[in-house]
C-alpha cells in the first residue's frame, strides 16, 4: 500500500502491523538508514569504544513544531548532541522515539524526519535505534520526540560543576535569547512581526576543538530553558561558589532585545539552543575564546565574568550603572507583563 494512500497518520500506523512497518521503512529508515539501524533488531549492537562514555536523554515537545531557524526534528538532535558536548563528549549514537498524534499529516511527519536525519548527518552521529507510537487525537500535540545519546570522552578532563574554581573566567558562546523569542513570536495571541531566528545548532565541534587545543575546561553548561540566569544559579548552587557577571558584557541581539522590552521579559531568562557557558582558568581564557570564535556557532563568544573567592553560593550581576545585585533563579514560566 503506497504511502500516498494515507495523507494522515492513523492509529494503525503505531499498531505494530503492516502499516507501521510501511511507515518506518518509508518515513524513517530511508533518511535515517545506517548499518546498525538497518539491522532492524530490538536493540542496537556495537563494539564499546575505548574511553569514558557520556549518556544523556531529552524530550522535545516544542510548539509550534516548525519555527524560524529550525524545527522539532533538528532540535531533537542538536539538544541531545549539545548535552553530550557539555561533558566534552563526541556523539557516537542517538536513539530516537516518536510519539505521534493521530491525524498528523504524513507530509509534516516526513518533513520532521528528514530534518532530523539531516541534522544528525551534519553532526556526524548515526541514529542507531528508534521507536514509533501513535496516540489518539488530542492525547499529544502533533508530535513529541525523545532522543537519547551516547558520546565518548576522548580526554582526561573532569568537566563538572564541582570542577569550578575561584578565579575561573566565565565565557559565553554567543548572544542570548534567540530560540525563546523566535518561538514566543509565533505563539497564539502574541502576534508581532519578527525576523528573529532560533539559534538551534550543534556546539560539539567548538567544545572538542577547545579540548584539542589544550584548554583545561573546568565546567560547561548549555543555556536552554530559563536561559543564562537559571544555568548560573544551578552552577553556583552545585559548586558552592559565588559567580559574578557583568551586564554590559552579555551580548543580546537587537531584535531579541526589542521583543523582550515589548513583552517585559529579561533576555537572561529566555531559552537558547546553541549557547553555553564555559568555566576556564583565567590564564587560558584568551586561548579558549580564540578557539570558540573560529566556529560560526560560537563566533561571538565573550568573557562575561568570573568565579569569586569562596563565599555564599550566589550569582551576582554588575549593572550598567555599576551597582551589584543578585541575579535570581527565574520562576520557570515566562509570562508577558501587562505594562
Amino acid at each position: 500500500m503506497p504511502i500516498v494512500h494515507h495523507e494522515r497518520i492513523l492509529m494503525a500506523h503505531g499498531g505494530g502491523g503492516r502499516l507501521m512497518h510501511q511507515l518506518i521503512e518509508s518515513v524513517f529508515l530511508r533518511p535515517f538508514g545506517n548499518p546498525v539501524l538497518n539491522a532492524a533488531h530490538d536493540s542496537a549492537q556495537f563494539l564499546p569504544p575505548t574511553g569514558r562514555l557520556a549518556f544523556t536523554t531529552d524530550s522535545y515537545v516544542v510548539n509550534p513544531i516548525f519555527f524560524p531557524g529550525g524545527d522539532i526534528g533538528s532540535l531533537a538532535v542538536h539538544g541531545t548532541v549539545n548535552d553530550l558536548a557539555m561533558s566534552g563528549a563526541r556523539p557516537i549514537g542517538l536513539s530516537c522515539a516518536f510519539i505521534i498524534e493521530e491525524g498528523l499529516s504524513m507530509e509534516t511527519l516526513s518533513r520532521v524526519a528528514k530534518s532530523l536525519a539531516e541534522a544528525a548527518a551534519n553532526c556526524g552521529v548515526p541514529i542507531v535505534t528508534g521507536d514509533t507510537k501513535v496516540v489518539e487525537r488530542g492525547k499529544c500535540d502533533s508530535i513529541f520526540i525523545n532522543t537519547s545519546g551516547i558520546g565518548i570522552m576522548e580526554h582526561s578532563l573532569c568537566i563538572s560543576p564541582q570542577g569550578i574554581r575561584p578565579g575561573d573566567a566565565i565565557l559565553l558562546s554567543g548572544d542570548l535569547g534567540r530560540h525563546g523569542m523566535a518561538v514566543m513570536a509565533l505563539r497564539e495571541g502574541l502576534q508581532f512581526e519578527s525576523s528573529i531566528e532560533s539559534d538551534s545548532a550543534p556546539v560539539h565541534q567548538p567544545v572538542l576543538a577547545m579540548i584539542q587545543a589544550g584548554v583545561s575546561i573546568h565546567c560547561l553548561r548549555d543555556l536552554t530553558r530559563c536561559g543564562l540566569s537559571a544555568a548560573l544559579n544551578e552552577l553556583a548552587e552545585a559548586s558552592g561558589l559565588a559567580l559574578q557577571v557583568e551586564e554590559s558584557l552579555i551580548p543580546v541581539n537587537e531584535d531579541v532585545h526589542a521583543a523582550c522590552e515589548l513583552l517585559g521579559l529579561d533576555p537572561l531568562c529566555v531559552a537558547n539552543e546553541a549557547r553555553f557557558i564555559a568555566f576556564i582558568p583565567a590564564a587560558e581564557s584568551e586561548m579558549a575564546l580564540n578557539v570558540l570564535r573560529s566556529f560560526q556557532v560560537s563566533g561571538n563568544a565573550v568573557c562575561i565574568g568570573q568565579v569569586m573567592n569562596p563565599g555564599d553560593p550566589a550569582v551576582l550581576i554588575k549593572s550598567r550603572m555599576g551597582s551589584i545585585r543578585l541575579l535570581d533563579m527565574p520562576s520557570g514560566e515566562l509570562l508577558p507583563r501587562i505594562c
Partner: protein
Amino acid sequence: MKFLDEYRSVPMAKKLVRQIHQRTSRTWTLMEMCGGQTHAIMKAGLDDLLSPCIRLVHGPGCPVCVTPMHVVDEALDLASRPGLVFASFGDMLRVPGSHGDLRGVKAAGGDVRVVYCPLEAVKMAIQNPSLEVVFFGIGFETTAPATALAVLQARQAGIRNFSLLVSHVLVPPAIETLLADPDCTIQGFLAAGHVCAVMGCTEYVPIADRFKVPIVVTGFEPLDLLQGILMAVTQLEANHAQVEIQYSRVVRQDGNAAARTLMESVFERISANWRGLGEIPASGLGLRAEFSAFDARKKFRLQKFEDFDPVECISGLILRGLRKPVECPCFGASCTPEFPLGATMVSEEGACAAYYRYRTPSTSVPHPLP
C-alpha cells in the same frame, strides 16, 4: 537599541545623580507610582545611588498587585467552566486567589489563554461561536481604552459570546487617598508617564495644589527617573508644588483625547476595592448600563467572593509608602515570589517582588581575586 540606549546612558546617569546630591539640603521622600518604575529603579540600583538624600517609597501602581482577591476568585470560577475560554494578560496567571491560580485552573482543564491585546479575545469569540469568551479587563488608564475598544468592536460585530470581567482602576483617586492619610510621609510624586499619555495631566493639578506636593509625570528608563527626581527635588527645595512633565516625548498636557473618549463611552466611575489599600470611592471603572450584556459577572451570575489578606502581610503599609519591603519580617522568609503572602509580592512588578528579584548581596560580598 535606538530610543532606549539613550535613556540608559551611564555617564548621563552619573551626572544627574551628582546634580541631585548637589541640589538637596535634606532627605526627601518621593513615591514613584508605577510598578514599572519601581522595577527600573531596583534593576539599575538607583535607590542606592541616591541614598541618603532621596528616600524612594513605592506606590500602588501595579495593576496585578492591587487586583483584590475576590476578583481573582471570580476569574478562577469563570476559567473553570466548561465551554468557556478565559483570555487574560500573562502576568495575571500566577496571581493566587483563595484557592490556587489560573495556571492551576488551566492544568485542571480550564481553557485559559494568554493574550497581549483585548482585541485578540474578540477575534477568538468570532472564530469560536460555540464557545463563550471572557476577557479579564485588568489595569489602569493605560489598558482600559483597549478594553473599551474591544467592547465596541464586539457590539459592532453583533457577537453575543464575548464578555468581560472588569477590574480597571484609576490612579488619581489612589494618590489622593495616600496623601489624605495622616501618617503620610510622601513629599513628592513621580506620576506614571503612560497613564498620563492617555489621561493628560489636568487631574493632577488640584491634587498638587490641595496637598502641596510636587507631581512630576515621569518615564520608565533610568535617565527618565533620575531627571524626574531632579525636577521634584528642585521644586521641593524651592518650596514649589506643581505638576510638571518629565516624560515630554510621550505625554501631552491634555493626553490622548480619542482614548479617553473610548473609555468614557464604555465605562463609568465606580467605587473599587484595592488589594492592600481597601475601598476607594470613584477609583474603578464599571461597564455602563448600555453595555451590561458584556458584563461577565451578570452573564454568568457570579457569586460574591470575600477579600482576604494574611494578617502578617504589611503590603498595605508598603503601598502607602509607610514601610519598605525589607522592613517586613516575612520578606524573603515566609513570603517569596513563589509563595507570596500579599499584594506587593504577587506580581513581578510589585515592590516586594522587585526588591526580592534585585536584592543586593546581604552581608559579605565576595571580592574578586587580585
